[in-house]
């Protein structure tokens, strides 16, 4: 149990929120790019027929990612609130330990034991809840990773379909390239968040086993 671990959780929650805000921005940009691609493939007519289901897929993926980001941001905010609560609980535990250590000559020290037992129990329960919260966040981040999984295949297919679109080939190739870059960036941000959460999880596990 240390203030470092609390700081770590607070920083992680803030970092995850910041990373997700970047992910949301990228997903929004993807959504706009998709609208643009839809307009191009509409103009290309028959030649870009194969490109249309691809744009629908990308659009759906961008919407999924944005929804997940909103959900995870709320969870991350809750995590930071829990980290603050945890600081209060740790401080309380420390204050009461000091009282217990200094009160061996006090006549009424035993009257404090129920309160100390309650605080210790609260702390253990809190650690458990916190651990579950971090795992839930990790799983939600995994959902983002899963949502973007098909993007590489789609990106390759997009290039093939773009090459068939004759006069619109260059524009659609740019769309395909952007999609690849955007999903790469999303994956990088999500991976970084997951690594941070994994660290917190390790710390919490270590503290619980002590």
């Amino acid at each position: 149990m240390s203030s470092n671990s609390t700081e770590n959780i607070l920083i992680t929650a803030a970092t995850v929120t910041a990373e997700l805000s970047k992910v949301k921005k990228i997903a929004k940009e993807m959504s706009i790019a998709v609208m643009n691609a839809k307009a191009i493939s509409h103009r290309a007519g028959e030649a870009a027929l194969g490109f249309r289901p691809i744009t629908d897929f990308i659009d759906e993926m961008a919407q999924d990612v944005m929804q997940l980001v909103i959900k995870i941001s709320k969870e991350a905010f809750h995590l930071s609130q829990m980290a603050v609560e945890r600081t209060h609980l740790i401080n309380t535990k420390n204050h009461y330990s000091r009282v217990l250590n200094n009160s061996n000559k006090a006549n009424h020290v035993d009257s404090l034991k129920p309160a100390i037992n309650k605080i210790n129990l609260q702390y253990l329960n809190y650690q458990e809840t916190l651990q579950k919260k971090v795992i839930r966040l990790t799983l939600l981040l995994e959902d983002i990773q899963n949502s973007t999984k098909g993007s590489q295949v789609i990106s390759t297919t997009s290039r093939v379909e773009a090459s068939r679109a004759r006069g619109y080939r260059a524009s659609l190739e740019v769309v395909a390239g952007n999609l690849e870059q955007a999903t790469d960036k999303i994956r990088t941000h999500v991976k970084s968040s997951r690594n941070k959460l994994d660290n917190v999880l390790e710390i919490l596990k270590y503290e619980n086993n002590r």
Partner: protein
Amino acid sequence: MKATKIYDSKYQWFMFGRDPEKKEGIIDTNQYMIKTTDRTILLDPGGIEIFASMLTAVLHYTNVENITDLFASHQDPDIISSLGLWEEALPHAKLHTPWLWESFIRHFGSKNIEFAPIADEGGFIDLGDAQLQFIPAHYLHASGNFHVYDEEAKILMSGDVGAALEAAEAPMYVESFDEQIDKMKMFHQRWMPSNRAKQDWINRVRLLDIDIMAPQHGRLFKGDDVKRFLDWFEDLEVGIAIA
């Protein structure tokens, strides 16, 4: 933390303070406890930093179950920022505090404690053996502020009125009123904003029979020094920091 019994009859008044473990740079505070047969009230129980020392000192004299009431004269951190910590040991205690500050004091980590807001006119609390009055002391220095008067013990817990900034090892009682003036003049002139509020309080307090005036910082006033203080305070211009 030193504990001094300042009244001992059917019930007791204790003063806690002069904490040698207190961190550097934190103002020294006096906390008070009134212990009757089956109830105990803590008056201005103090800040977070002194919580452990204060609770340790209290446990020499009473069970935590017997602490049924807390009183906070106003909202300052040195008065009641320890609230969230006390709550853990006193889940059934009531906090008596100016109604004005309830929602502010809840910022001090308070979750469950029952607030007993004191109306501007003041009020009473019956602790069985002891009956206490909450005396209005608004603007001295906080805009919602009360002192505690015990008619039987003839003690007025006077919050920041009578306070002095001095060394942590200072004696418990004022030994020379004239020497005390230097230690409390600036405090009163700067912290107390209103001459009108000051006069209202003096008029009210002159009607009380007081043996001990017990401020939240510095030394306690006993006997004739109480009247000396009231005369001195009446002549003192306060709220002087307006440039």
